[in-house]
């Protein structure tokens, strides 16, 4: 698998002070694969996600996305800021709290990456940004400021902003956890569409039913280790580990996805 995998994580370790958050994590994501990371809060799943685009610097192990590989730990030199920036430009990330730029319109938010990072001409960036906004169903909100949008709309803009960098992989950090329940569906619908287009994705989520539908592999983490890993449906429907069973018992595992009420 490692020959063809898009993301490869080996022996990853991370501590915050004396708190060991990630203990020897290994992870492979195939090209076009969708991996869901689930687990209780404090399990390290968000930290693992943030190690993939190096928003969090690991203490040891290695991270590879595409052809770029970084080694961490004893004797390994930390990558400089320019190398890091170039690397992150190839991975898109969507945050729990959207983190849209409030001083820019929706369109400017989506154009920001292409213009500032990729040095794209304004006109080209605008064309690209408008196309991304159409894709997430928010073309008519282009000139509005984020403050005027609903949570679901904000998150869709955030997805468009990440997609405008035309990344190889997309990372979702609890993208629907801050949303009102009735707004979850519209965001999940966009993520599902990306999955069907073959985008490589790692999704940290509490939406178990969604993970079952969209992810092909599922990883259950607890206390900084991978407790169970396998095909999403198999892990959710017939978990092997007691810890996984205990965690999943808090959720409705099957059933319809939350309705994607609107596309606008």
């Amino acid at each position, binding site marked *: 698998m490692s020959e063809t995998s898009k993301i490869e994580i080996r022996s990853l370790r991370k501590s915050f002070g004396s708190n060991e958050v990630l203990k020897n994590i290994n992870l492979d994501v195939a090209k076009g694969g969708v991996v869901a990371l689930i687990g209780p809060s404090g399990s390290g799943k968000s930290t693992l996600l943030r190690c993939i685009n190096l928003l969090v610097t690991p203490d040891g192990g290695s991270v590879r996305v595409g052809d770029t590989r970084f080694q961490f730990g004893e004797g390994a030199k930390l990558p400089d800021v320019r190398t890091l920036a170039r690397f992150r*430009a190839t991975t898109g990330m969507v*945050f729990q709290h959207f983190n849209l*730029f*409030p*001083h820019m319109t929706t369109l400017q938010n989506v154009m920001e990456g292409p213009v*500032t*990072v990729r040095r794209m001409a304004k006109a080209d960036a605008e064309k690209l940004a408008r196309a991304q906004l159409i894709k997430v169903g928010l073309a008519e909100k282009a000139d509005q*400021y984020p403050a005027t949008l609903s949570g679901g709309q904000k998150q869709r803009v955030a997805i468009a902003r990440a997609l405008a960098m035309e990344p190889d992989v997309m990372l979702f950090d609890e993208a629907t956890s801050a949303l009102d329940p009735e707004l979850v569906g519209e965001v999940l619908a966009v993520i599902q569409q990306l999955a069907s287009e073959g985008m490589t994705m790692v999704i940290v989520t509490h939406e178990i039913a969604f993970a079952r539908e969209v992810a092909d592999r599922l990883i259950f983490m607890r206390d900084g280790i991978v407790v169970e890993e396998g095909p999403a449906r198999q892990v959710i429907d017939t978990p092997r580990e007691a810890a996984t069973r205990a965690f999943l018992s808090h959720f409705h595992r099957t059933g319809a996805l939350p309705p994607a009420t609107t596309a606008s």
Partner: protein
Amino acid sequence: MYQWDFGILWSYRWLFLNGLGVTVGFTVVIVVCGLLFGLLGAFGTLSRFRALRLLALTFIEAFRCTPILVQLIWFYYALPILAGVEMTPITASALALSLYGGSFYSEIIRGGIVSIDKGQSEAGAALGMTPGQSMRRIVLPQAIKRMIPALMNQSIIQFKNTSLVSVLAVPDLVYQSQVAAHDSYRPLETYTAVAVAYAAILIPLTILVRRGEKRLAVGE
């Protein structure tokens, strides 16, 4: 009963105007230089490097925690002896006031920058921005809006602090009015007029800034 006679000041009008010109010009210089020092100080305190942080902090506290009047006198009389550089009263007082203002601006600018949610610079980094790019494009534009009221406040204080340069015989508005007061034996009228002159410049300015703040608040 004291007989007020403001008419007598008219004959000193050129002296006052001269002094006012020096005061305003001086303020522009020390606000601009002060902001520059402030920016350096703020980035210093936020630096990744410990030595830079320490240096910036020392600068800020040294100037924040000593009286400006003492600094002015010290820069003019003591620094030349210590460092062997002669300075005109104007240079010495411009330097002292810029550094003094800069120490306060530093804290305002630093406070503005750290008040911006960490998620903002993370989102910039996730897009592939360098720390410099995300500071310029994402953090500073938002932080400056928050800093403006405090920066304005500090600049008003700077404007009024220029009155202290008269102790080094810099011919500002206060210095010239001292001359006028001695000459006319009318200190009450003279200083009343000076107070009115300061207020007449500052009050319209504060109104202008208040309007500007409202315009800047778009989109929040």
